[in-house]
């Protein structure tokens, strides 16, 4: 599967290269180094993003450096960013771990002449090159539209529960731009479904055990609970396990955001009903392409939105769907 993606990536990129002035830069022998700093290094999402970025780097003939911190935290990410900046790469792709705290260190990089592109998460409000505010200096934001992702999750869940009943969001912790937006999109969409009640959001600190216990507590209070939206992997894993322990698997529908390999057996066993896959490889790929285009003198759009795939028991074995499961 990996080889297949790479092949497609190479073919597509070769096509692009052949048709664009990028070829000239290659011919001129410019060897760029692009640094990719993920939100955390230990997450299948970013690992898959790295693979997409590698495919683009290989196709374009640039060096890719992948360096990050083991946890999603600005305190550990900023030193990594500073170290990378000190080596002065041609461009930095970064998934900032905080909307505010990463602004100053990224500005330092930008002022040193290193173009900055944010992937997956953003700084400021995510609207760049607007000439307003102090966080509009990144060139481009490449990501899934997480608000849209939340809406898609809400629509899928509403359909699964027959458009009525009580649901809640199992979330990590507040302040993370992406999971906040998923929750926001989910709640906005659910407002259009008048027979669905959205209960208080539960924050689990990325602890599956806690998410499971919270599920059971919410269920004990609301025996008519119809569905739960797990805004990330551990939230969904916890909710589905909570359902299993409470013998309510199938009765309470579980929608999971993100689709690492471990989601497949859960979908097949019916523990998780729907998984919303982002396309992290696409994010990495187009992040590198955008950086390269800028370095080669091309203009770059300030926002590149990547897609989603809705996965359920019925389509999980379909090769066109399966390829969006995050690989490790």
């Amino acid at each position, binding site marked *: 599967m990996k080889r297949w993606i790479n092949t497609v990536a190479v073919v597509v990129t070769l096509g692009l290269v052949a048709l664009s002035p990028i070829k000239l830069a290659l011919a001129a022998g410019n060897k760029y180094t692009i640094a990719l700093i993920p939100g955390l290094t*230990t997450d299948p999402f970013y690992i898959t993003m790295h693979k997409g970025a590698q495919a683009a780097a290989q196709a374009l003939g640039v060096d890719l450096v992948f360096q990050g911190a083991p946890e999603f935290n600005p305190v550990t990410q900023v030193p990594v960013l500073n170290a990378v900046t000190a080596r002065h790469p041609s461009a930095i792709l970064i998934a900032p771990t905080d909307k505010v705290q990463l602004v100053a260190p990224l500005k330092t990089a930008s002022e040193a002449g290193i173009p900055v592109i944010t992937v997956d998460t953003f700084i400021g409000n995510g609207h760049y090159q607007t000439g307003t505010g102090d966080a509009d200096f990144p060139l481009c934001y490449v990501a899934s539209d997480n608000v849209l992702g939340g809406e898609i999750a809400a629509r899928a869940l509403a359909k699964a529960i027959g458009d009525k009943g009580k649901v809640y969001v199992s979330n990590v912790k507040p302040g993370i731009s992406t999971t906040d937006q998923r929750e926001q999109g989910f709640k906005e969409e659910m407002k259009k479904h008048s027979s669905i009640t959205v209960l*208080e*959001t539960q924050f689990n600190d990325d602890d*599956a055990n806690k998410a*499971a216990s919270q599920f*059971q507590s919410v269920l*004990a209070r609301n025996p008519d609970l119809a569905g739960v939206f797990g805004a990330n992997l551990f939230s969904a894993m916890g909710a589905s*396990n909570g359902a299993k322990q409470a013998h309510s698997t199938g009765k309470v529908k579980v929608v999971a955001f993100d689709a690492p*390999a471990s989601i*497949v057996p859960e979908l097949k066993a019916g523990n998780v009903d729907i998984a919303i896959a982002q396309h992290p490889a696409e994010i990495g790929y187009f992040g590198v392409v955008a950086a390269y285009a800028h370095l080669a003198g091309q203009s770059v759009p300030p926002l590149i939105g990547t897609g989603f795939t809705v996965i359920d028991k019925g389509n999980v074995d379909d090769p066109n769907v399966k390829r969006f499961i995050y690989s490790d």
Partner: protein
Amino acid sequence: MLVEKKITKPAPLAGGEARKAFRWLAVLAAFRAWLFLAILLAAFELWARVAYGGTFVFNPLNVKSIALFTVTPLLLALGQTFVIISGGIDLSVGFTMGLSAVVTAHVYNWAAQSGNSGLSLVVAVAAGLGIAVVPGLINGLLIADLRVPPFIGTLGMYGVARGVAFLLAKGTTVPVQGGLMGAIGNGETLGFPNLVLLTIAIILVMHYLLSHTRYGQHIYAIGGNVNAALRAGINVRNATIALYILSALSAGCAGIFYTAKFSAGAAQAGEPVLLDSIAAVVIGGASLFGGSGTIIGTIIGALIVAVIQYGLVFVNVEPFWQFVAVGVVIIISVLVDQIQKGARK
């Protein structure tokens, strides 16, 4: 046989006329963990009845969920109780648990290729416990032989175990193929979740070890006064190494249970639980300066932490109050401990 049995049990209530005024306070303090738990349960029951006309304590789903929820922090806390009684601390248990969870998942998948899932389970559990011994042994050697302070030594091991766990898991969760692991992890025997029953068995072993063996007495003696323990002829080095191995094994069990419960091993499985587990030991009456603490206290402490977190969701309180509530209970516990010490003087 220099050390008499029960000599090192938590101090008996102080006698004497001058101390009489504080006596009621001391009684209260001795049972503070039980008292807290009772008050909490009563408060949630009242809250549920008044606000929703429902029951909290008598809802079987609540009881089962709280029991299951307590398993992980309690397992980390059981080993930690021994370490804290000895005057040490083990910060590495969270990632020892994660390491064990990942190794258990990998080994189970590898062994399951043979087609014998029962045997694979045994091999996987053995591997999960075996790998846990490694950080425990290194912790013990660092602390006993190289005189590294426990806080620093185990903090270092926290990083090492974490790194190795993530490396082995390749940064992702490791799903377990095949149903036996998940069937046991989520199954029930006579209506009781298997994981809860297994945890009770581990509790009994730990309780026996701490309060009915000479080894347990040595731990209290080391925590009370390490020089006196040495003079009494206790092999402090070996006892210390055994302590950290015990703590790691306890965390290893938590890791194996995690993999069984979620049918997947995750390196970060125990990370968020570490502080809750230390809180459980402290709320349960153990002193971070060593020399006191009991397994039963730790169980009550773990239940208190779990009941607060579960109950506040049940009564639908804004989630962030959970942190505040657990923090307040820890502070009150330590305050009561201090007052109790004052009463004894």
